[in-house]
Each structure stands twice: as C-alpha cells, then as structure tokens.
C-alpha cells in the first residue's frame, strides 16, 4: 500500500485513495467546495489544491482527485498553496458575491477586500418571464458543476448543464425551459456548496411537501424518513407513494449513495400463512377529524389545532422541539383555550358516546403548557369534567388550585378569527343566566378531539368474524371485555371502545389470560431454545481485551478518525487486539468476532460504536456463542455521544472518542463473569378475597392448570356483587355470579378457604409461604399473590340518612326498593355523597352510571314518576353516555349544583324536602321527594388494607387503596415482584372492569407460574459480610425488600427480589454492598481512565 508524507506526517493508505482521503486519515483539514463523496471527482473548483514537494512532479494539484501515490511528499498549507487558494477565492467572490461559504473562506485566508469589478448579476427587469427557467441564483453560483455532475453521474437524467461561454457561462436547463427530464429529486440542491439551487424554479415536478404524520401534520418530512424518534426498528423507511423511484422508476439516488448497500427496491409485501390458536385484535382508534366541526375553523384558522397537534408542539422531539409556539407567527401564545367534546357526546357528528380520555388529556396539556411557559393562561371549556379514573380527581384539583387552570362550564358555539394577528374570538354562554352570551379572545385554540373506531377496524373485524357496534368499535361480550362474539378471537384496547391507558393495558393482560386458558395444553410446545457452547472459565486469567471500533458506514467515521482511535487503543494496557470495521453489527463481523475471540484468546470484548441500549444484546449474544460470559462485554458509544453531537469538531470528537474507549478499557479490565441462578417456581397462587374479582382471577389460573388457594374472610363467596341485580346494559349479574361460584367450586385446582385471613407471608416471587388464621390455620406454598380484597359502600353521615326510611343509598334502592310502585311519585338522587369531598377526595367512578341506571329502571316502568338527579358532574364515560342521553330523553331531570353547596334534605310531613342550588337558573329550588337516594361512594377497607400492605410490602395510596407499580403502564403489578392487585381494592370500578382487571392480574401472574424456574442474579447487589456492620441502612433503603439480616447477623441480598438499581450500594456507609458490573471499583476505573490520559495502574485487576 502507498506510503506518503503530508505536512511532515507519514501515512499509509489503500491503493486508489486520493490525497484528500490520506489527509483525512491524519486529521488534516483541506477546504473543499466541488467535492462530494458520492459524486465522481472533477477537481473543478481548485480550492483543495496542495503542493507536491517531492516524490512526484512538483507543483500544485487538486487533493480531491489526485491519487495518493507512494513516496509523495505533500504540503497542504505552503505559501504557494495559500497564494493559490487566495487567488481562487478572489475570483469566486467576483463571480458569486453573496455566497456565505466563500466569504467565510475569504476571511479565513485573510483575503484583502477586493473591489467588485462588476455589480452583482441581476436580470434587467427584476423578474424572469414565466416560461423560462432559472435553476440557479447566479449571485451564489461558483460554477463548480457539482450539481451537473450529480445529476448526470449519480441520478442520471442530465436535467441541468452548463450553457453559454465566457462571462455568460451559467448553470441552466436546456433552452432555459422547464426541464421535463427533471424528476425533482433535489440532489442538485442538496450537494450545491453555496446553496444556489432551488429546484422549484426549473422543475415541473418539484418535491411536494409531505405532511409529517407523526407530528399530526405539523411540519413536513422526506419520502425517506424515520417515522419517529422512538420507532422500532429505528431505521428509515421509503414512502413508496411519494418516492420518485417507485413512482417513475427514475432517481435511485439513495441506493447509489448508501454505503452499506442497504437499499433494495425489489422487496415486496408478502402474504404469509400463520397457524395460530388464538387471535387478539388490538387495532386502536383514530382521532376525530376536527374539520368535520366546521364552526371551530380547523383547517381555516392556523392557530386552531387539535389536541394531538398540541401534544406534538409540547414534545421535545416534536416540530418545535418543545417550544410553545403557534403556527401562524411562531410566537408564544399567552391565552390558550381548550374546547372539549369535539366529536364526542355529539349527535350532530354521530358520536353520541363519550371518548373517556379528553378531559384528562386537556388538563394534562394545560398543566404542561404552564410548565413550559408559566405566564400562559389556560382555559378549558367543558360540559362535564370527567376525572373519573384513579388519581384523576386530585390531578384535576391540582390543575385548578396549583396551576390556576380556568375551567368554564360552557359549550363554545363558534370561533371567528380576528382581522389582524390570527387571534381567535370564542363565543359562548357564560354560566348562570345573568351573564348571557359573551365573546372572549384567545391566541390559540386546542380542540379536544374524540376517539373514533379506526377506519380499518371494520375490515379487520369482518375478516376475524367479529361483530362491531353502531359506532364501528368491536363489540365485547357482556361482563367479559376481552371476549368477542367469536371463540378464540379476543379484543384489547381501544379497538373495543375509547379508553385510557390503564384500561387498555388491563384489557390486554386480560386477553392474554384468556388466551392462556385456551392454549394452556400446548404451552411451550413451539418454543425454540438457543444452544450455546459451554462457557470458558476465565478466572485468574490476565485480561486480554479485544476492541472493535465501528465506522457505522460514515456515521462515525465522517467525524471521528476511527483509524486513529483504533491505533491509539492498541497502546493501552491489556488490549491485545483492535480493529476498525465498517459495520460492527453486521452478520459477517459477528462471525469474525467469534473467530477473533478464539484466535487471540480474548477474555474481554469492547465494541466502540453506538448506544448499548440497542446493540448490547446483539454483541452479548455473540459473546455467548463464542463461549464467553456475556458480562465480560463492554460498550463505548462514539456515535450518539460523539460523532452525531460533535459533527463540527472532528478533532475534539476524535479525542473524546479516545477518552470514551479508554474508559471502557479501564472498566473492562475489572469485569467479572456473572452467573445466573435458577430458582424453581411453586406453581400455585394465593388469591385473597372471594368476591367476583378474586373468583375470576382464581378461575382463570385454575383453568390454566395452576393450583389456587382462594381465601375469603367471610363465610360466603360473592362479595359486593351479591347486592347488584343487573348491569347498566341490562345483563343479569346474579346469573353471572351464580355461574362463577359454581365454576369455582367445580374447578379441581381451586381450594376454597372460608372464614379465614392471612396471618403471615414469607418468601419472594416464585416461592412464597403463607400461614392462614381463622377457621383454617393451614400453611400454603405458592409462587404468586393476588390481592382482591374489595371495598365497601360509604355510609352517609348526613341528608337524614338513617333518620328517615325515605332516605336510602343507591345500593339499598337497587337491592330492596327498586320494585316499589313509583307511579306519580318523586325520587330525588344526590350524587357525590362520600366522594370528591374533604374526607374522600377521589371520585368513586360508578355512582353516576348507577344513578342513571336506577333512574332509567324507575322511569321506564313508571313513566309518571318524577326522577331528579342532582349532580356536580355527570361522569358517564364511554358507551355509558348513551344511557345518560336516554335518561334525559325519557324525562329524568338533571340539576347541576355547585361543588361547595350540597343540597339540603329535611323531613317534610310524610315526605322529604330537598333544597338545591341550580347553577343554570342561578337560584335555589325546592323539591318535595317521596324518596331520596344517596349515591354513596366506594371506600377502601382501610384497616385490612393497611394490615395486608404491611405484611406484603404492597404500597397504599393516600386514599388507602392499593398502589400499583405504575398508574398507566403496570396497573395490576406491585413494585414487589410476584404480587398483583385487582378489583375494588385497587380503586372504585364497575363490575365488568373489575372482572377485566382480575383477568389481567391472572394473566400477569401466569407469566411467572408458567415458568419452571426464574433466573435470578445477574446485575444485582451483593454484600461483603466482612464489611457489613448490620446498620440496616440497606434494609430501610430498598423498596423491594431485598436485603435481610441472615443467620450470621449480616445483611444479605435476596437476589430474587433485587431489581439491580444499586440504591443500597450508594447508601451503604461501609461500602459493603456492590452492584455487579457497576461496582465502585469498576465505575471508578471507568471515569478515572476517561479523565486521565492513561488507564491508571492503581485500578488494575486485583
């Protein structure tokens, strides 16, 4: 290979490389203009000239095209070179007086300002005739011809060329006409060094701006794009609808340019046949098209956005990078209005249901907007604020109280734009009759669009043989939300109705449980187990480190000098092998890596490439295939943390890359193999609580063949459901309950224990032991715990409840009084009794629906009855809204009273007198009632919950309901593994929702029970007993209860419980606890090696 000298340094390069390539190897910068790596060289602009001093014919040559010949001695910055570049620049300035890049170079080369010999070019009358084409701004063009070359030699159509002679020479299209052969690919504009070309000026096929789908049409994207920053896999896709190649067969620039040859236009969609035992439909939803509500001006007024668009504006990875700015002028909006129920609860657009999620997402957006810009005034126009989910009410209260979000209970009738400034005037009726119609100006309006059935649901449902409801959502079976009408086809998420994230996750886990029941007999029969060679024992060996530095095509090597990094690393202690490869993650490099490991007897491997978050598992797999423990692998990220973020500073980026890899070498020397231990799983479950939730969960597990111990503290199964007759939809709960109890009793795997409670629980996931107390004092071994302990109805303390037999709760009404004769009678229902107040600040979720159901029951059978529902908000979400609508149609009267002024109930002869403040009429109303029904809330079983919480280390929330691991994403798990929650013990819910959550808990539990053994160990903490002072700091610190004091009186970590967060290690005052692969010594070696210009000897292997 040729060896040459550049500026006094020698370098060896591959044959066929240019002087420019050789200089790059040495990190020597040479300016270029007409050079682009994907375009064949022409040496046209002469800015890259260097001087040959010896070894060839002396003189100036262009570095970009002159071959790097053996023996050449080159100077890149000699007086002659500088003189020549100055001359070139002086000519260019005359030619292209407005080109910024030339000006910068002129400044860099200290060019004296040269008087322009001619004024800047311009057409005589200031505009071009319509039928001629001017591809190029002549004040910017330096005539390098790169655009012509890329069009001719890379893309192919030859749409532009040089025309004219002498000073009239310019870049033009043939005959200066719109160029029919131009395919509008934009490659010319892309490569132009001075930004002189605008393809729209000469192409009849200019690149259309494609709205960015993920940014809800805000901003645009290219035909080749990565759909969004978190896409899996994170690779670009070609949008064939907009790709020139797919549309015209031309272009093909991407395949010519891609250094990895990854582009294959021949890949076709394939039809595949799959043999499956069950199908789960998870199609999701579409957002309502806001343009259908034309009164709000979406699509006409630039500052009227949908909530999806606003969400993207708030997002750090969105079109404005999280800066709050309105589309019309990119200025910060100060007054933002949200309009609720756009495309929901609206007969005009056909969506009479409630979309369930909009009230909360609007509230969240308002809070986040105020967090972005504190002086934003947020106003939410709503009908009923439906904060019915767990924790939602307190979130709503915080929005009002801490963030001063203004809630206006009114529907906006129209939006008009102001004549100047694109502000928006909202017209609405203010609350209370006296205030009348008002107009208010805002800077931006966000439409809280509803959720609709996805356009593809109908087709998918038809294929799967599943029924859809009138709104196009797939229809669930009564009581069992994850079941469709067809056996073996299951539903999860918004495909079956608008719902929030926790409900979606629960329904999905529930569907998984039902699939598990169906497929239990064939579980694991199609699993392929990977085989690995036996692991080589490396204990006692001196570290032998191999380092693979990746070019990542040009992603890294275009900035970081990969060769230099690789050479440098070779000099570090214990590094016995280095190489740099174009794509380290490619299949052939993986194969070679295995060979190299054997050949050089490596016992540590470092890859310096991209983020370990995506590629570490791949390389660790290779380690295992090569017979090495996967924890002897270390990664240095020189792409995301280096080349991509320091692209303007190649020298510093290369230095940083060396630091990063040196850090990895420092740590790698101390890496130790980590063994995973198998711990057997007791394939049995403890279910606490014999209500419908507990029974459903027990049954789901029993049907999968797992033993279940179902513990009920009373003498009877059934719990709260015993008092409910029918569901809102009219289905018979008692029948369902009876069937469930019969099935539970008949299920051989289920052991029912009545009149008993939990006395003591020990052990950890997979291996618990529970002692019972009460009628049974048995001991039971099991792998998981499901808490389904239920809740109670609130016992009202006011409204004459308990004083008069004319005041009852909804539950008492449904159980005992619903069949009375209400002809001509007056029934008054009062909502939010024991909910949303000081004592019980949460919403009980079910009371609105229950009141509507009972009111409908009375009204349909006794049309002459007067039924009033006195409410603060009616929260009949999803399809329950249809029953609220029906109740109003049948004449049930709904009276809204203020939060702070509850109705007064007093005795009135043989009846009751209810006085209520009506917010619409803005005055008190007296109602003479024959029966007052209190919608009493659901309260937790505080005493028993606290006891169980203490015993199982399962957290409670501030309302004393059990607290899941993550409100949205892990709605049935606890932070402690192996323990699950469902039913009313988690939060107030409708019965069918409790059933879903019970199935979900069973589904999650089955993940553990279906395993023969759990892998424990890995990245977990361990205690050095010699250093442990038994101070119990770790025991207090760990929320997973992993540390315990062992028989020797020392702290020890139960590996099966340890989650590997390392919090105990940081807290341990004696530094007795270390987290594997993140030990203090390893971490210290990492940053010491980065900070020092060496791998410090003091932190070497012991």
């Amino acid at each position, binding site marked *: 290979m040729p060896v040459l000298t550049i500026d006094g340094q020698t370098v060896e390069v591959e044959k066929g490389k240019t002087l420019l390539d050789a200089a790059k190897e040495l990190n020597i910068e040479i300016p270029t203009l007409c050079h682009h790596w994907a375009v064949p060289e022409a040496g046209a602009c002469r800015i890259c000239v260097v001087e040959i001093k010896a070894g060839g014919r002396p003189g100036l040559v262009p570095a970009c095209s002159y071959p790097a010949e053996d023996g050449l001695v080159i100077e890149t910055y000699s007086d002659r070179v500088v003189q020549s570049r100055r001359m070139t620049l002086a000519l260019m300035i005359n030619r292209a007086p407005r080109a910024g890049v030339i000006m910068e170079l002129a400044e860099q080369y200290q060019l004296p300002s040269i008087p322009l010999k001619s004024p800047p070019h311009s057409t005589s009358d200031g505009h071009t005739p319509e039928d001629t084409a001017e591809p190029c701004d002549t004040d910017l063009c330096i005539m390098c011809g790169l655009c012509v070359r890329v069009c001719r030699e890379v893309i192919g159509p030859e749409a532009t060329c040089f025309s004219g002679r002498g000073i009239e020479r310019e870049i033009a299209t043939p005959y200066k006409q719109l160029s029919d052969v131009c395919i509008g690919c934009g490659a010319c504009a892309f490569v132009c060094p001075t930004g002189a070309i605008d393809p729209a000026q000469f192409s009849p096929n200019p690149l259309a701006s494609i709205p960015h789908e993920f940014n809800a049409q805000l901003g645009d994207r290219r035909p080749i794009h990565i759909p969004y920053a978190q896409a899996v896999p994170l690779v670009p896709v070609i949008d064939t609808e907009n790709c020139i190649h797919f549309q015209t067969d031309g272009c093909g620039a991407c395949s010519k340019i891609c250094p990895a040859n990854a582009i294959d236009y021949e890949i076709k969609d394939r039809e595949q046949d799959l043999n499956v035992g069950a199908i789960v439909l998870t199609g999701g939803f579409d957002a309502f098209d806001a343009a259908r509500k034309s009164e709000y001006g979406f699509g006409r007024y630039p500052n009227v956005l949908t909530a999806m668009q606003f969400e993207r504006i708030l997002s750090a990875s969105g079109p404005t990078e999280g800066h709050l700015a309105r589309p019309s002028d990119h200025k910060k909006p100060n007054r933002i209005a949200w309009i609720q129920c756009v495309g929901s609860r609206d007969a005009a657009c056909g969506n009479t249901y409630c979309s369930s999620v909009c009230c909360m997402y609007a509230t969240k957006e308002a809070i986040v907007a105020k967090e972005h810009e504190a002086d934003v005034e947020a106003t939410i126009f709503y009908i009923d604020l439906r904060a019915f989910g767990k924790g939602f009410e307190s979130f709503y209260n915080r929005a009002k109280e801490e963030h001063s979000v203004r809630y206006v209970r009114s529907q906006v009738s129209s939006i008009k734009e102001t004549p100047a400034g694109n502000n928006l005037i909202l017209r609405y009726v203010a609350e209370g009759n006296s205030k009348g119609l008002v107009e208010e100006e805002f800077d931006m309006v966000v439409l809280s669009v509803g959720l609709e059935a996805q356009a593809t649901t109908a087709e998918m449902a038809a294929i799967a043989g599943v029924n859809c409801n009138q709104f196009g959502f797939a229809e669930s079976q009564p009581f069992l939300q994850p079941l469709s009408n067809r056996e073996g086809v299951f539903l999860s998420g918004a495909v079956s109705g608008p719902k929030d994230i926790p409900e979606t996750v629960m329904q999905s886990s529930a569907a998984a449980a039902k699939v598990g029941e169906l497929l239990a007999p064939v579980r694991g029969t199609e699993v392929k187990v990977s085989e690995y060679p036996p692991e080589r024992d490396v204990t006692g060996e001196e570290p032998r480190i191999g380092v693979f530095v990746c070019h990542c095509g040009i992603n890294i090597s275009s900035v970081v000098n990969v060769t230099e990094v690789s050479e440098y690393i070779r000099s570090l202690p214990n590094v016995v092998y280095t190489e740099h490869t174009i794509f380290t993650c490619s299949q052939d490099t993986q194969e070679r890596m295995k060979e190299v490991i054997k050949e050089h007897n490596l016992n540590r491997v470092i890859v310096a490439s991209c983020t370990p978050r995506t590629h570490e598992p791949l390389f660790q797999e290779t380690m295992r295939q090569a017979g090495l423990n996967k924890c002897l692998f270390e990664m240095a990220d020189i792409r995301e943390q280096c080349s991509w973020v320091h692209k303007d500073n190649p020298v510093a980026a290369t230095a940083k890359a060396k630091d990063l890899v040196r850090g990895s070498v420092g740590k790698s020397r101390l890496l130790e193999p980590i063994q995973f231990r198998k711990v057997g799983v007791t394939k049995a479950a403890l279910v606490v609580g014999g209500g419908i939730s507990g029974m459903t969960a027990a049954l789901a597990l029993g049907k999968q063949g797992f033993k279940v111990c179902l513990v009920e503290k009373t003498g009877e199964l059934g719990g709260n459901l015993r008092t409910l007759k029918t569901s809102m939809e009219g289905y018979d709960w008692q029948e369902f309950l009876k069937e469930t109890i019969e099935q539970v009793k008949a299920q051989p795997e289920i052991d029912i224990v009545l009149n008993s409670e939990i006395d003591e629980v020990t052990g950890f996931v997979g291996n618990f032991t529970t002692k019972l107390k009460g009628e049974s004092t048995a001991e039971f071994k099991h792998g998981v715990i499901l808490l389904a302990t239920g809740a109670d109805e609130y016992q009202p303390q006011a409204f004459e409840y308990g004083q008069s037999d004319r005041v009852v709760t909804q539950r008492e009404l449904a159980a005992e009084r619903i069949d009375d004769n209400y002809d001509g009678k007056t029934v008054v229902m009062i909502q939010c009794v024991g909910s949303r107040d000081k004592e019980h600040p949460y919403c009980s979720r079910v009371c609105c629906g229950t009141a509507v159901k009972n009111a409908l029951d009375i009204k349909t059978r006794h049309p002459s009855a007067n039924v009033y529902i006195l409410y603060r908000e009616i929260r009949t979400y999803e399809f329950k809204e249809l029953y609220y609508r029906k109740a109003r149609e049948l004449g049930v009267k709904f009276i809204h009273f203020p939060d702070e002024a509850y109705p007064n109930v007093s005795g009135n002869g043989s009846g009751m007198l209810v006085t209520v403040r009506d917010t619409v009429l803005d005055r008190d109303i007296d109602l003479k009632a024959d029966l007052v029904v209190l919608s009493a809330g659901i309260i937790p079983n505080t005493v028993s919950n606290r006891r169980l919480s203490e015993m199982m280390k399962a957290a409670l929330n501030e309302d004393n309901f059990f607290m899941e691991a993550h409100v949205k994403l892990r709605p049935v798990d606890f932070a402690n593994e192996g323990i699950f929650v469902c039913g009313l013990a988690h939060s107030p819910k409708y019965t069918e929702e409790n059933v879903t959550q019970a199935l979900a808990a069973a589904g999650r539990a089955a993940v553990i029970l279906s395993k023969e053994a759990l892998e424990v160990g890995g990245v977990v903490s361990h205690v050095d007993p010699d250093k442990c002072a038994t101070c119990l700091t770790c025991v207090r610190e760990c929320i997973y209860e992993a540390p315990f004091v062992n028989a020797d009186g020392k702290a020890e970590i139960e590996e099966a419980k340890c989650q590997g967060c*390392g919090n105990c290690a940081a807290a341990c005052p004696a530094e007795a606890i270390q987290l594997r692969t993140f030990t203090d010594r390893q971490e210290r070696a*990492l940053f010491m090696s980065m900070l020092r210009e060496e791998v410090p000897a003091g932190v070497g292997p012991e």
Partner: protein
Amino acid sequence: MKNEPTIIAFCCHYCAFTAADLAGTMRKQYPTNIRIVRIPCTGKVSENMVLQAFVEGADGVMVAGCEIGSCHFIQGNVRAVKRVAHAKKLLEETGVNPDRLEFYHVAASQGPLFATTSAEFTERIKQLNAGGKASADTTSAETPQETVHDSSRT
C-alpha cells in the same frame, strides 16, 4: 488551568442516558466536554463517587436522572437529589465551588434538553474555571479561593 474542562455526567439508563441517545439521533450539537457514565439509576450515585470524580480531575459533575415521579426504580432519583445536595455541602467544605456539581431531571424524550443542559453546564464550568484562575492570581482574594483539584492531573 485548562481551557477545555472535562465534565463527568452520571446518567441513569432509563431517562437521561436515553435522552443523550435521542440528542444524538436528533443531531443536537453540544460541547465535547461531556463524558457520560451510565448507571442503572441515579440513586446508585453516592456522595463518595461524586467527590472521587472531582479528585480524579473532573472540572464538573452532572448527575442526570428521571423526572420526579417517573423513576424506573420508583424513588431512586429522589434519593439522588438529596445526595447531590449533601455532596454540594461537602464540596463547599473542601473549598470547591458547589456549583461545579448539579442534578438535572431529563426525561427519556428530552433529547434537546440534554443537549442544552450539557451546553449550559459546560459554559458554567468554563466560567468557574476562568474565575478560579482570576482569584488565584490576586493575593487579596476577596472571593473564596477554590483549591481546585488539579493535583492529580498530569
């Protein structure tokens, strides 16, 4: 005193480290001074570890983790905030300006924030380095003089 400071950034795997990845994917440019150390959780960073980074020659230390309420390990970041506050006191006692240490909340989606935070923190450390030099030159040091940690650096 060096012109270009070196900054150690302890980044939790689930949030700040992911944000750093995203900053890369989005090509958000920031100064080359940041050296990221990946840790499972900011709750893993002890006061001792932070101080050692200074002893080894770091000019600044960033601890970056999840936003409050979204820690993968529930409350590791809450502990980290406390430990960083404590470590700042310890730094002050040893004569190192506590502004050289900071905790930042960076959610996984906040790539641009990671870049701007890194840039701002680098700028802060550069100014402290410049100030440190100035106060060392004046004998009547009115500003508390930093005994900067250069001893271990070669």
